[in-house]
């Protein structure tokens, strides 16, 4: 089939099914925007994880009466752990200095703490912060150890919220996807019915299977692509106005960058076009004789 003839057929079928195609585009936009939001949330979890890999440590608070041999034994045991990358002893003074550094913006807190109030600590960095609970369990209650704190535990609620939103977005996207696929299927069925005389003549004069199916597949693929691009625009808006605008000053963690957004935009655009074309192909198998 010549490209111009294909475009003519495509324009005719789009004109005829304008309302239906519009419905597919709207549904595809919602579905793919949810999918994209899910992808961005997942990227955000990844971003926070990567940041924390270099930041989070397990902190072992020592009792005031911890002896030198006890501390050295503790340090050497920790170094022997496969998940531990570094072990650093901080004296009471060094711990106090760090505390002053961290809270230099909060004089009210600083004024209530004297150098002797804070325990000496052993700070432990891990290869994988997700395995910190092993260290906490193994070293709590050991001689010379007051307590073992996992900085990561503080962040657990944040992770829970991010994961919850991600699962929610993907679930809604899946529900919306069934509506989108059902609509595309119906669009192709209606389209095949309204063009049945044309396709019958195409068959008779010797048009190939591909030429007969192409306008339908293109129609659905383009509707899916349009939905994908609109969803992509939503993701760009989300990054520009929500992430870079409202959230930027509200959190101490790094937020997703534009690279993750562009990856999301490309993914939803391709997913829209491919889902449209594949569903059309499936519907044509049932509703178009070639």
């Amino acid at each position, binding site marked *: 089939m010549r490209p111009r003839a294909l475009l003519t057929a495509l324009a005719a079928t789009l004109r005829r099914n304008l309302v239906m195609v519009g419905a597919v585009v709207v549904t595809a936009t919602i579905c793919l925007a949810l999918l994209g939001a899910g992808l961005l949330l997942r990227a955000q979890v990844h971003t926070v994880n990567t940041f924390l890999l270099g930041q989070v440590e397990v902190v072992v608070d020592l009792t005031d009466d911890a002896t030198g041999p006890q501390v050295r034994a503790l340090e050497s045991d920790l170094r022997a752990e496969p998940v531990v990358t570094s072990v650093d002893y901080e004296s009471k003074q060094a711990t106090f200095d760090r505390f002053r550094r961290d809270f230099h913006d909060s004089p009210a807190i600083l004024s209530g703490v004297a150098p002797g109030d804070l325990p000496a600590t052993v700070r432990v960095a891990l290869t994988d912060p997700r395995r910190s609970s092993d260290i906490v369990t193994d070293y709590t209650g050991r001689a010379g150890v007051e307590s073992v704190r996992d900085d990561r535990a503080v962040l657990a609620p944040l992770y829970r919220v991010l994961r919850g939103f991600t699962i929610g977005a993907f679930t809604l996207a899946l529900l919306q996807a069934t509506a989108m696929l059902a609509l595309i299927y119906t669009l192709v069925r209606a389209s095949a019915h309204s063009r049945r005389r044309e396709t019958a003549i195409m068959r*008779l004069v010797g048009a190939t299977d591909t030429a007969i199916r192409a306008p339908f597949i293109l129609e659905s693929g383009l509707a899916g692509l349009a939905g994908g691009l609109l969803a992509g625009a939503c993701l760009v808006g989300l990054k520009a106005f929500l992430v870079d605008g409202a959230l930027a000053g509200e959190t101490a963690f790094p937020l997703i960058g534009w690279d993750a957004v562009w990856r999301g935009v490309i993914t939803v655009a391709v997913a829209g076009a491919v889902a449209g074309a594949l569903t059309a192909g499936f519907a044509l198998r049932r509703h178009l004789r070639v």
Partner: protein
Amino acid sequence: MIRLSGVTKTYPRAKQPALEGITVDIPAGQFVFLVGASGSGKTTLLRLLLRAEEPSAGRIEVAGRDLAGLSHRRLARARRQIGCVFQDFRLLSDRTVAQNVTFALDVTGRSRRAARTAVPEILELVGLADKGDRYPEQLSGGEQQRAALARAMVARPPLLLADEPTGNLDPATGAGIVHLLERINEAGTTVVMATHNAAHVNALRRRVLELDAGVLVRDHPSGAYSPPSRVPAPAPASVPAPASTPAPALGAWAS
């Protein structure tokens, strides 16, 4: 051009076969009338030649190609060797005559340049040179059938199948279409025309294949046709009829 050997077609859930044991050979360049009452199997035979249906048994060759087991692509190519016209014209109502004819070239990938010369030529041949920009609804029945013929012949296929092409036309207009088919045949195209109009058959005296209840009952090289009366009776082998005999009324033999 066409070779059928022992072709039988039984539709699903049908008690009787629509065609049974048809063996016939139609050389290139022949004009063949396929006659018989409605339901005798004429249309089924034409549909088998297009592979719009598959035979239940037997072998069908068209233009040197065995139609069984052709891939979609090869089947499409095989169909480009066959032009078809039908009783109901089957034109696209939202396109002009010229666009209807061009459509056949467009969808089979022929170039725009080829269409620019082929379309006016074929419209001239069928007598619609000045009506290319009309829409089907602006044409008479005869003109619509001529437009359908132009579409069928624009790619110059070596075989033309015509399924009751005069069935919806008055006798004089129908005779004009048959004359056009005769000219197409004289130019070298093999023509198979299914009809139950005795006047057309008797006027031309070409090869006649007669079907009765799916069985080939007569194959005469220059036969006439005498449609069966309402009470079925064996037809005479050949009934001469003058060319001037008025054609029977439209649809006279339709069941």
